[in-house]
């Protein structure tokens, strides 16, 4: 905790420019406000072929929506107020709000969200894992979609952990429905949900090696032959991305 705080990059202090005050929204966001996860290279997303177009050296960062600043608008602020102190970044994108939560706070946050009469997020739509291999130190994300049936509101919680220490506290105690969902996320991503009553594989066979939904796990497949030509499996084909 305290070590994390020491690592915070100080705000870059540039020279004062009058244009900044006049139109701050037109400025590029400072580096620590943009969530860049990896980079896209070249023009065509294909590697291994002779790209003679001259665009092969292009490097474009993959930038996810930047954290929002208060006020978030409407009831978003009510939820944020109730969770004050437990929240990391808050992202508002396409009308959906995402609260990034540190794993130590997750159970407390979920309990508050479920039990506070002003919040009442009594329904959890499970957990979805996402593997960002280029998000160094936060490779594995667990995403929870919560619904308040009382107030008809939806929010998203996101917890990220390093690949080297893939532990997240289980939410089965707060939302029993997460039992199978956490087993699936463990099965597919290798995220270990501490405190889960029986964290075993659920979709893959019990003795399966590896976690198939991780980006470093190959899709598999065999080349297909047709009239003398051979088409490689989908993950090895020349492709765009």
């Amino acid at each position, binding site marked *: 905790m305290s070590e994390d705080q020491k690592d915070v990059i100080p705000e870059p202090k540039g020279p004062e420019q009058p244009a900044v005050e006049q139109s701050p929204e037109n400025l590029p966001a400072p580096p620590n406000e943009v969530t860049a996860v990896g980079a896209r290279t070249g023009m065509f997303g294909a590697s291994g072929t002779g790209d003679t177009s001259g665009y092969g050296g292009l490097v474009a960062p993959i930038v996810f929506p930047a954290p929002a600043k208060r006020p978030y608008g409407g009831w978003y602020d009510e939820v944020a107020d109730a969770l004050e102190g437990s929240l990391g970044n808050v992202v508002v994108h396409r009308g959906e709000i995402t609260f990034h939560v540190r794993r130590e706070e997750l159970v407390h946050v979920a309990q508050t969200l479920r039990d506070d009469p002003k919040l009442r997020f009594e329904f959890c*739509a499970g957990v*979805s894992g996402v593997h960002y291999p280029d998000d160094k130190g936060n490779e594995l994300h667990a*995403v929870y979609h919560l619904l308040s049936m009382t107030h008809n509101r939806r929010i998203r919680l996101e917890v990220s952990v390093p690949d080297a220490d893939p532990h997240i506290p289980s939410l089965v105690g707060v939302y*029993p*429905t997460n039992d*199978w969902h956490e087993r699936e996320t463990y099965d597919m991503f290798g995220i270990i949900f501490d405190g889960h009553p029986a964290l075993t594989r659920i*979709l893959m066979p019990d003795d399966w090696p590896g976690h198939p939904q991780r980006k470093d796990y190959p899709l598999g497949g065999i080349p297909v032959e047709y009239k003398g030509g051979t088409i490689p499996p989908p993950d090895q084909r020349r492709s765009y*991305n």
Partner: protein
Amino acid sequence: MTQDMYAGASETSEGKVFTVTGQDWDSIVEGLAEDSSDERIVVNMGPQHPSTHGVLRLILEIEGETVTEARCGIGYLHTGIEKNTEYRSWVQGTTFVTRMDYLSPFFNEATYCLGVERLLDIEDQIPEKASVMRVLLMELNRISSHLVCIATGGMEIGALTVMTIGFRERELVLDLFELITGLRMNHAFIRPGGVAQDLPPGALDEIRAFVALMKKRLPEYADLCNANPIFRARLDGVGHLDLEGVMALGITGPVLRSTGYAWDLRKTEPYCGYEDYDFDVQTWDTCDAYGRFRLRLNEMWESLKIIEQAAERLAGLEGAPVMVADKKIAWPSQLAIGSDGMGNSLDHIRHIMGESMEGLIHHFKLVTEGFRVPPGQAYVPIESPRGELGAHLVSDGGTRPFRVHFRDPSFTNLQGTSVMSEGGMIADVIVAIASLDPVMGGVDR
């Protein structure tokens, strides 16, 4: 005891294990008679048992005929659809996700496409006709899905007539699907930006004829089952799960509404313009399998109401676009019925091959490379026949999904098996699971 090379008894560290495949139950009875001190047996039911609703494995611990513990073993139909979509374009994704819950393909396509459209920020640009067609197809699909639920549920308790008439009516819906999309299942018809093509000539007449016929046929189910003492004896009070249990387990759909709570995303968070249709959310208050059966019957009536209204609106939308106007997203290829069946429209081929080099390049780029979706994540849940179905989509700005996760209601609802069946009779396990209506394609994905 006769020796059978496929079925017999063997000693293991866990105790005596019997393998029976039917018509050889004597071997168990004789085997247990030898060791009558213990009534407790662990029965492995499935994954290929005809009464377990697909490839579901049930591990039941029984004492006499009472179930003391029930556990599900799933994963027998896991096909890695979520992983596969990461290696295809965003449009090709519909072809994959439609195969998840194979009894409600349009719902899978719709939630996926609504998510992609939200990430593309084109939700406001979807043509009205595309939304109405989506609603029409989803409600037809709800009827066909509920019919299968009722039909297989009936078959599992020995009501074979319910099965035959259920599949008879479902066939009519599949005929409509074939007419409109070209396929009975796995349509990939709802696409990001709209739907694949316009309604074929005569489709509205067929739909109206279907609605008229269903209004005659649906009362048959009520006559056959609603007050049937045998049917009621098997369903009344079975698979009991009250609102508290349903909420804790995150169960949605008919099981939630059978506790009396009128939660339906079509009303609470309308999508595809559901707020413009006149229909009621059906509830029941018995929390049991019989209530869920009656609820599904009632929901089919509501779906018929929506279909009538959608058909009415479509009649006034003849010739309107069914795909978003943005040519950077809309699928360029047009389909037409030729002498050898459905294929690329010859007019479109003539245009790109003979008239417009730019048209050809545009077609080629969109079909092979696809469109880019801005980075971010979206979750747009919809009310499928089984409950809240949602796709968690993550894009990294590429032409392919970074992550597609389906929150399938079958998967979540199946967790209710233990609480619904423990302490009851072994025969009621089948009824309880049938009332959840799990589809293993959706459970295992």
